[in-house]
């Protein structure tokens, strides 16, 4: 079936720690994107990453399309990194995004 699965579902860290979030996706999904939903509900696109590695400040993402997974790295976490991180991919041949269930990240001061 069409699936995007994220792990872990919840992650609690102290400020300054590093974290890795994982997204596994099925054969029928491609063109991975990562989003951050902040505590106020706003969804912000972090990366569009069908394959390879991208970096933006303390955040970076890697997608290994041949092995059907993507990783989001957050270094030196800050309390403002708290929220829910979603990965999503396009159903192949369609313009529909399918979302994972998200990883809830809590960064404590």
């Amino acid at each position, binding site marked *: 079936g069409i699936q995007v699965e994220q792990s872990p579902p919840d992650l609690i860290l102290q400020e300054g720690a590093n974290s890795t979030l994982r997204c596994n996706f099925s054969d029928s999904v491609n*063109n991975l*994107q990562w*989003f951050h939903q902040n505590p106020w*509900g*706003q*969804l*912000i*696109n972090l990366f*569009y990453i069908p394959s390879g590695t991208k970096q933006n400040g303390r955040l970076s993402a890697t997608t290994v399309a041949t092995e059907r997974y993507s990783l989001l790295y957050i270094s030196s976490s800050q309390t403002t990194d708290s929220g829910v991180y*979603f990965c*999503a991919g*396009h159903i192949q041949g369609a*313009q*529909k*995004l*399918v*979302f*994972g*269930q*998200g990883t809830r990240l809590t960064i404590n001061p």
Partner: protein
Amino acid sequence: DAGITQSPRYKITETGRQVTLMCHQTWSHSYMFWYRQDLGHGLRLIYYSAAADITDKGEVPDGYVVSRSKTENFPLTLESATRSQTSVYFCASSFGQETQYFGPGTRLLVL
């Protein structure tokens, strides 16, 4: 201000009433989308549009109607609201199969 906006941001209505949620984008993106977000279900696609006058169903279209007479607007109508349609609704847009940009969301409560 450029970007993607939604209105209203909050809405309370009663069962059986018609409700229209508005979405407007200033980027001239060809694609626009409506999602709903519910606890336990994540984000699910309701409808999407590839261009003006072209719309297609998503995962959960029942009870919703969309139209797109202008590229920049994509209203979502609940023809007869039900309690199960209580949710947070997000509009999004993109040029193609690339980055989707989301609006701030509309919180809808159906009593």
